[in-house]
């Protein structure tokens, strides 16, 4: 992990180390959001995200905050780019659809739509939440949630993959969701 004091001093070697460390994460986010529609923009968005991170280095309190912040910046930049490009495509600045969006477009708008829990979060707030998820979502709950919600595996497939009974899969998922709810402050007490 790079030395934050060295980064704040503008140490070129420390920044080289930081760029190499952060690059896979920002590139992965840009790739995730832009690959189906604007693959040529992936590198630019990743680099611009790192530039923006450089601008914010004096606001960061510890090195651990760097990666969540970089990922948050990349997410916001990619979503902004998608909104801007599709707004142009549909007629400069018009928010309502002029044509029925394709499945791909609908999927594209999902993470950027106003009902997304991430939509209203500022970069720093999202970075804090991501850092918290990374630290507090203990294994194997994250893996079970990924298998089911991101990779669309069925209960039986997950059970085989993780070596548990089919009946336990739901339990892991339920506990995983509860953990996420708690981390995001969306549990019953809030």
């Amino acid at each position, binding site marked *: 992990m790079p030395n934050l004091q060295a980064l704040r001093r*503008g140490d*070129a070697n420390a920044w080289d180390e930081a*760029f190499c460390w952060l690059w896979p994460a920002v590139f992965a986010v840009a790739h995730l959001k832009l690959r189906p529609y604007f693959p040529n923009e992936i590198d630019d968005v990743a680099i611009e995200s790192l530039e923006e991170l450089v601008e914010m280095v004096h606001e960061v309190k510890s090195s651990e905050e760097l*990666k969540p912040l970089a990922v948050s910046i990349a997410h916001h930049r990619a979503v902004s780019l998608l909104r801007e490009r599709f707004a142009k495509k549909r007629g400069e600045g018009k928010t309502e659809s002029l044509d029925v969006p394709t499945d791909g477009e609908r999927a594209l708008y999902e993470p950027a739509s106003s009902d*997304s829990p991430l939509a209203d979060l500022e970069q720093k707030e999202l970075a804090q*939440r991501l850092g918290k*998820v*990374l630290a507090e979502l203990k294994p194997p709950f994250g893996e079970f949630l990924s298998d089911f919600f991101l990779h669309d595996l069925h209960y039986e497939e997950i059970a085989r993959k993780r070596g548990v009974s089919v009946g336990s899969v739901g339990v892991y998922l*339920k506990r995983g*969701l509860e953990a996420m709810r708690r981390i995001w402050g969306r549990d019953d007490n809030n």
Partner: protein
Amino acid sequence: MNSMNDERFFDLAMKIITRQATDAERAELDALRACEPELCAEFDRLEKDVRLVKDTLPLVDAMQTAAGDFPAYAHERLQTKVRQVIIRHVVAKGQYRSPALIWRCVLGLVAAAAMILVVVLPILHMYRAPRIQLAMLDTIGGIRGTDTNEGALLRKTWSKATLDFLTSVEALHEWETKNKPDEVKVIYERAAAEVRVLGKWHGKSFRKTFLVEPDLEAALKEAKSFIAEQIQE
């Protein structure tokens, strides 16, 4: 709802939310919700939770990715950004003097020094002129005194100088030998019809004789020009 129904409701909800449910499972969930209306709110809450997970986990996964090399072409662009940001930050804290600012200060000092050399020193030099002493030798006598035309011309030419009237060569010799540094003596020898200039200026000695031709005024003018040349060099 008992724990068995609770688990079943959760599993059915998950399958429906992720579009994995069969028609029979949909009907089963609808039946459960009809019996217990509070399950509708719980279903809505689960939908939101799933949405949160689907939005968040890819970003968390991205943070754990280690694959992918930082492209070399981005290196200089980002290092330039680092330099700009750090300089801006230091300037904002008032700890920075840019090279351009330093050079402007140096150039300003050089210009000021040049101004002193070009303008001020010559002015000072101009005000520092040699002391001029005048003497008029009249061995014949009869035309001495401050009222003579020659004496008046000498005073007019060097208004701040002292004028001595001498009547013998010995007296003139004695007068000439009383030299002081940075002093110029101008002697008008009426009998020889000449004006002699003897001087020392900044360690340099000079001397020249001017014939009174066509008249004394012209000779004095030439002598004055000669003195000016010597003290300027």
